[in-house]
């Protein structure tokens, strides 16, 4: 059961952290139509996170709720990929700030959606029927996210010299973080063992194919992965997650007995 909970929290934290990040665009998008589209992506992700936290809370039992899992766990307890917590701009220290960059947003959404389109499909066969049901619902959503981010990736890569350079820079920045997808983690191994989770390495060839085809269409160069392999899914994060959670959790924690 603990294997299932850990695995669910990993999936839920992924969805919440990226949903939280993408929602930063709400009201600030490059054009009204796209502002609205990106909010839909956030809403889907937060919806997925809620279902996954609710299932984890049920398995944990007692008085645990989705909001306790989201708002009252600390940075080192979060199990999301580091990729998803990074701010919408190039590499900078935790307390440094910069404008939001849509290229970073699109590249990240693409890299993650390409993975989740495969993972949710595989998880439809999870031994945990509730997780399988969440996977079936999430699969439809992520297929649209993949289509949306892939279309934009091609537009940015193929568009102007500036958009090409910017999206290539975003790709160079973010791509190394995808190594974490394929790295071993005890929680994933236990979930695979229990038949609940999926061994991501069985999806890697398909992910590579999706990514390579899109990059070719976008005239972007696939960076050679290598160097530091991030470990967010083991609870070892970048400097950025602390800030994201401090902001997200501040109000709930200031009123631990509050009702909302």
């Amino acid at each position, binding site marked *: 059961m603990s294997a299932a909970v850990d695995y669910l929290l990993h999936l839920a934290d992924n969805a919440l952290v990226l949903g939280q990040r993408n929602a930063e665009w709400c*009201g600030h998008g*490059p054009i009204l139509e796209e502002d609205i589209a990106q909010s839909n992506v956030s809403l889907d992700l937060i919806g997925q996170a809620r279902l996954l936290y609710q299932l984890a809370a049920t398995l944990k039992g007692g008085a645990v709720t989705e909001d306790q899992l989201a708002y009252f766990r600390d940075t080192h307890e979060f199990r999301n990929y580091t990729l998803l917590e990074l701010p919408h701009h190039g590499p900078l220290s935790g307390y440094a700030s910069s*404008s939001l960059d849509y290229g970073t947003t699109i590249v990240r959404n693409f890299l993650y959606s390409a993975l989740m389109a495969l993972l949710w499909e595989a998880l439809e066969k999870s031994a945990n029927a509730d997780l399988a049901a969440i996977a079936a619902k999430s699969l439809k959503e992520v297929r649209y996210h993949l289509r949306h981010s892939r279309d934009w990736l091609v537009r*940015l890569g193929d568009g102007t010299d*500036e*958009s090409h350079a910017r999206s290539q820079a975003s790709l160079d920045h973010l791509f190394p973080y995808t190594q974490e997808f394929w790295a071993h983690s005890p929680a994933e191994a236990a979930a695979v063992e229990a038949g609940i989770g999926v061994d991501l390495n069985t999806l890697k060839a398909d992910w590579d194919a999706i990514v390579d085809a899109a990059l070719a269409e976008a005239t972007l160069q696939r960076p050679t992965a290598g160097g530091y392999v991030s470990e967010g899914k083991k609870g070892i994060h970048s400097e950025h997650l602390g800030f994201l959670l401090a902001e997200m959790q501040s109000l709930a924690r200031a*009123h631990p007995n509050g009702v*909302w």
Partner: protein
Amino acid sequence: MYTQSFNVQDTPGAKAVASVQSKEDPALQAAFDARIDADGRIEPQDWMPEAYRKTLVRQISQHAHSEIVGMLPEGNWISRAPSLKRKAILIAKVQDEGGHGLYLYSAAETLGTSRDQMLEGLHSGRAKYSSIFNYPTLTWADVGVVGWLVDGAAIMNQVPLCRCSYGPYARAMVRVCKEESFHQRQGYEALLVMMTGTAEQKAMVQDAVNRFWWKCLAMFGPPDADSPNSLQGMRWGIKRISNDDLRQKFIDATVPQAKVLGVTLPDPDLKWNEERQHFDYGQIDWDEFWATVNGNGPCNKERLATRVKAYSEGAWVRDAAMAHARKQQERSMKEAA
């Protein structure tokens, strides 16, 4: 229809305007007046007096600007929403405001003004937007109060516009009003829940009501005696109910809601007038209202600068999409050749 092109070559983005006949042709003017008097609808291709067109463009674009500037004060709390449910509701709500802006810009575009032209008006500071969004949202309760009172006031204003004389505007307002009632209800319900919570939460709700009440009353605009444009708007059927009447309607509807919620409204003069069958209320601070409208409110500069930043920093993204579309078109033409 939202369009009025007569199969003429159009610059992308702008809609062709039905050619306006010789300045103000008396026969056309008479037909227009007759249709307005019969409570008929004017559609984009129809002849209309230039002043009517101009007034509509101004009114609809201001309305659209209000929606997109209005995303900012509430968007301020998305990242800190205290539960995942409230976070989702708030994103959906702020997103809807963006949608409303979009419907309204589209309606205004049927009058021959492009969205970029309207945005230029906003960004340069020439065009106004609802002044209520120049006040800060300081606590989470402000989000609930904005839904309950600000959206409530907006609904009072907007429902009559569903019957306005200009077809595209009326149709946009029908869509907007349908969505807006979710906004008011979610705000009020969020406050109801907070009022069952801790003493700090209740105090937060009361504080937010205190800060927003008078600003909301001012949202309906200056007293009828001081609004010279209102009469013409009424004549043209693009304003259906006077400022003071709408304000009164809002107050009468809101006082019982405040009672159910368990908050007081910060007006010692607010009491039921048996003779008028309405609530009497105190003096609105119009000097403060005009100071804010004219740029000297607490957040005017921040709101405008934020919109300008989003637009200018998004330019490379918009340009990329156009450049790609053009390249694709060239490629397919080459293939066909």
